[in-house]
């Protein structure tokens, strides 16, 4: 089960492939605490499992992220979604789409998969209530034909959660 249709995407460029291989090696040496990359032979799609940080609303809950890399990674951001069931969070939609600026407009090649993971964990950890975004149903309806979250025009306004 994946939360978004696998977009028919172009293969990684050579430079993207090299970069990702380096990221993977680095990850294997030193993954972000609490995160596990599930080994597959697909460099272009990573499945990452993690456990909510202790002392937070998501403690001991296990979630999976699906990270798809575009042809021109890292110039373009990877597509990152939760594989449902996604955590109940005011900025995470039930289809797994995440409203977090660094995944879209504020992405920079200075970031890495690892830094995304840390951001997502931090976003979860600072949450004070387990609930869906207010516009969840409307959004999900709009995404029914398998739209990528990268096509959404996100509105970032909240730096607290």
């Amino acid at each position, binding site marked *: 089960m994946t939360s978004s249709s696998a977009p028919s995407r172009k293969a990684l460029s050579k430079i993207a492939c090299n970069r990702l291989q380096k990221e993977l090696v680095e990850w294997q040496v030193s993954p972000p605490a609490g995160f596990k990359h599930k080994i597959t032979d697909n460099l272009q799609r990573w499945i990452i499992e993690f456990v909510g940080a202790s002392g937070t609303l998501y403690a001991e809950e296990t979630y999976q992220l699906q990270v798809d890399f575009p042809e021109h990674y890292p*110039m373009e951001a990877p597509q990152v979604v939760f594989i449902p069931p996604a955590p109940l969070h005011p*900025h995470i939609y039930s289809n797994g789409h995440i409203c977090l600026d660094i995944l879209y407009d504020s992405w920079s090649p200075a*970031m890495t998969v*690892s830094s995304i993971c*840390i951001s997502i964990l931090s976003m979860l950890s600072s949450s004070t209530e387990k609930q869906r975004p207010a*516009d969840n149903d409307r959004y999900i309806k709009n995404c029914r034909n398998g739209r990528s979250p990268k096509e959404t025009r996100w509105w970032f306004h*909240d730096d607290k959660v």
Partner: protein
Amino acid sequence: MANQAEVSPRKRKAVEDELEMEASSVAAMTTMNMNQPAAEESEPILSNPSDGAGTSGSAEIWPGEYEWSCCFRDDEIMQQQSAIREEAAKVPYVGDKDPLSALEAEFESGDPILKEKIRLLGEQYAALRRTRGDGNCFFRSFMFAYLEHILVTKDADEVERITRKVIQCRLTLQSLGYTEFTYEDFFNIFMEQLESVMTSMSIEELLSRSRDQCISDYVVMFFRFVTSGEIRKRAEFFEPFIAGLTNTSVDQFCKSSVEPMGEECDHVHIIAMTDALGVSIRVVYLDRSSCDKGELAVNHHDFIPTAASSVGSSSSSSASGNITEPFITLLYRPGHYDILYRR
């Protein structure tokens, strides 16, 4: 002042949201990463200074680039910005060299002050080369102007000098805690271009590479890394400028206004980049300003890197006389940079 930045899609956010944003919690965390990369919960070495936080928010549904109906409260701005983006995409990253009269034609029916300034400009400058207004125009203009200068002059001393600077920039990023693989490709591509213009590259080839996204954007990103590294390294120096500009921390500024592609340049970026690379830039301002004393003049400002040391006061055109004139001249019109060529 050059801070009326280009309208980029992100600017809306920056203006309407991030100014309001209380960045301290975010900053606290990332600063921690920066200073003690391995301290917190066996924080992986993968974390660049800008890592580990972001701004989240609610999704507003924006179904595809061309459907506007669902948009809310800022739909007019969005529409306008999308139009600007589409318009921008029609211009190549780096355009052909046009005679200055092309600029005149642009303002033919325009403001008399501008027309007069363009005439004055024509006394000193023969041509201009436009760049795409995609938020990267300062870096892109600099990239082309610099590489073209090397291509034409084959100035080996300058290449040797900047190569040393680039090595320093690398070390800066390293010491700031950036993971090498995040920046090395960008550094390598810049150095490749530098070597090529020094040896065999033709001007046509340079132009074609500058229009090739895979090369051009990598070089732009190289400059963004260099700029960010310099700002972070001299955070104390830049902090008041940044606070005045955006009311955010140095870290947040680098993360949101320097490192992402498409974020336009302000004086802070230019000072940092010229200092980091030790290259002077003259920026000629084409705007409606005039002084009352009658005679109209086209103002310019020279960004002169601070002497060898990277700490100290910023550059100024009033700096002492033994500094040579910048060999790079950019034309600034509110929101945009192009390249100017002297007579």
